């Protein structure tokens, strides 16, 4: 009973504070000396409607890029993570290679990897090497994001208790078999939320491929901005990215919540 009352009061307080906060913010922004200028340059509704169709068309390219890249990232990163989790002195070179890779590609800004590969690789003019900017853009994103995702996988692998592997080995499974059938299934399930997190990051970074000349959503909006000297088309692009990110973010939340419920249910049993 009391709890219910508290809840209603809590909702009322939250509502009031939210309304007050945004009202104050709106008043401050609208009364700022540059507001008229900003309103004209960023919130031109007519331009928004005019520019949206072409930007949405360009956004298809972004979707294509991150769908293709994500498939390769998930596979390549898993290989890297397993390489880095190999035990025994014999595998030192492989472990070192995977470590250096992760350091290197997490260290170099994505924008530079895209520039270097996108303009550098075709400049070699090797017969048979594609010059397509989308191809090299995807390669760059796969290289960079695999380094991050491999670390996520590795965290998952290391979170599986060593007794699991010991038990698998005692049942006669080989090292690779226990990794494949015992460790990885548990590890991957645990890291699905952070994997989706990186996937969202990847979606946004597809805009960087614009640097290579590809006309995707961001570049299309830049073209419109440069043609009109008005920034409204950027808002249209931002909206498209948010629209695709929000469902994925809620899905991630739902997965995390479900996982927690299951773990707690397990504890009770």
């Amino acid at each position: 009973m009391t709890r219910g009352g508290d809840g209603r009061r809590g909702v009322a307080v939250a509502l009031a504070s939210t309304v007050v906060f945004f009202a104050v913010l709106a008043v401050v922004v609208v009364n700022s000396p540059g507001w008229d200028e900003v309103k004209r340059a960023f919130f031109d509704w007519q331009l928004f409607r005019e520019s949206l169709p072409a930007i949405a068309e360009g956004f298809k390219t972004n979707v294509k890029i991150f769908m293709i890249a994500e498939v390769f990232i998930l596979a390549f990163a898993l290989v890297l993570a397993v390489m880095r989790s190999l035990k025994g002195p014999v595998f030192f070179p492989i472990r070192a290679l995977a470590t250096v890779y992760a350091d290197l590609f997490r260290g170099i800004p994505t924008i530079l990897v895209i520039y270097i590969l996108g303009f550098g690789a075709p400049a070699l003019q090797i017969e048979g090497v594609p010059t397509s900017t989308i191809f090299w853009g995807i390669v760059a994103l796969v290289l960079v994001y695999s380094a991050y995702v491999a670390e996520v996988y590795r965290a998952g692998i290391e979170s599986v208790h060593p007794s699991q592997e010991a038990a698998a080995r005692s049942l006669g499974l080989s090292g690779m078999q226990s990794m494949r059938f015992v460790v990885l299934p548990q590890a991957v399930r645990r890291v699905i939320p952070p994997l989706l997190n990186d996937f969202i990051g990847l979606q946004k970074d597809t805009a960087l491929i614009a640097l290579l000349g590809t006309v995707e959503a961001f570049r299309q909006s830049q073209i419109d901005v440069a043609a009109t000297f008005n920034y409204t088309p950027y808002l249209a692009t931002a909206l498209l990215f948010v629209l695709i990110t929000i469902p994925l973010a809620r899905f991630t939340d739902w997965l995390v919540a479900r996982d927690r419920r299951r773990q707690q249910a397990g504890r009770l049993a």
Partner: protein
Amino acid sequence: MRKALITCLALAAALVVAATASGRTDATKAAGAIPGCSPASLNLLAEGTLTIGTDNPAFPPWWGGTPKKPWQVSDPASGKGYESAVAYQIAKRLGLAKGDVKWVAVPFNNSFKPGKKPFDFYMAQVSYKPERAKNVTFSTAYYYVDQAVVGIKGTPIASVRSLAGLRKYKLGAQIGTTSYEYIVKTIKPTRQPSVFDSNADAVAALKNKQIDGLVVDYPSTGYITGVQVPTSKVVGRLRQAGAGREYFGLIFSRGNVLVKCVDKALTAMKADGTLARLERIWLAQSGGAPVLK
């Protein structure tokens, strides 16, 4: 109260500048100073100094000279190159000496952002467009421009002789230029054109054969085919239909009254043949390329 104080200060500053400026005018004898446009009345960013913004690097033939300090490729303060020469002519006609002109490097994308601008006007081959004029103020024309297509010698595009013949090629342009618009609206290619952040990127893509043809303003082709990509050539010039002919204008903050005096200076330069003369000096190209129709 505060407004009155500011007016007083501005008036005092104007008087000081007028005093010093008149002293200087006597010495340098401003040729063709425009009535009603004395340096003190110009609404300049810094009193007595004309601050001009342009992109860095500044490329020939618009800019010339040997680069100094922050500038790459060219030096806007050299007075060499078409835009530099025009800029100093404008300054002269406003009663300012060569030393009164200050240059600031401003990327194109920052030239039109809302709010206070770090320059009196911006000069970097920016084409006038009615949509753009809603957000900044443009001067009258200081150059009427043709677009042109550059391709690598010996590749299929190099032998194209008509506008329709360009349609099947992968074309590219620099962002912010009207070249892209020309590709999309006039050439209407069957393949999605590429758009690059800078001249350097666009030229790199041409060199790498990531694009078949680069569309740029015609005067810029001399530097591309002569210096940046010696294996390239001008495939042809692209001329726009009469009335809406594309021209370059100077960019001012919206409603800056300075534009009135600059327009008067430009009109005078057009009338007395100065612009045509500077165009002959800096933008003449040998072996005129064919006009594609």
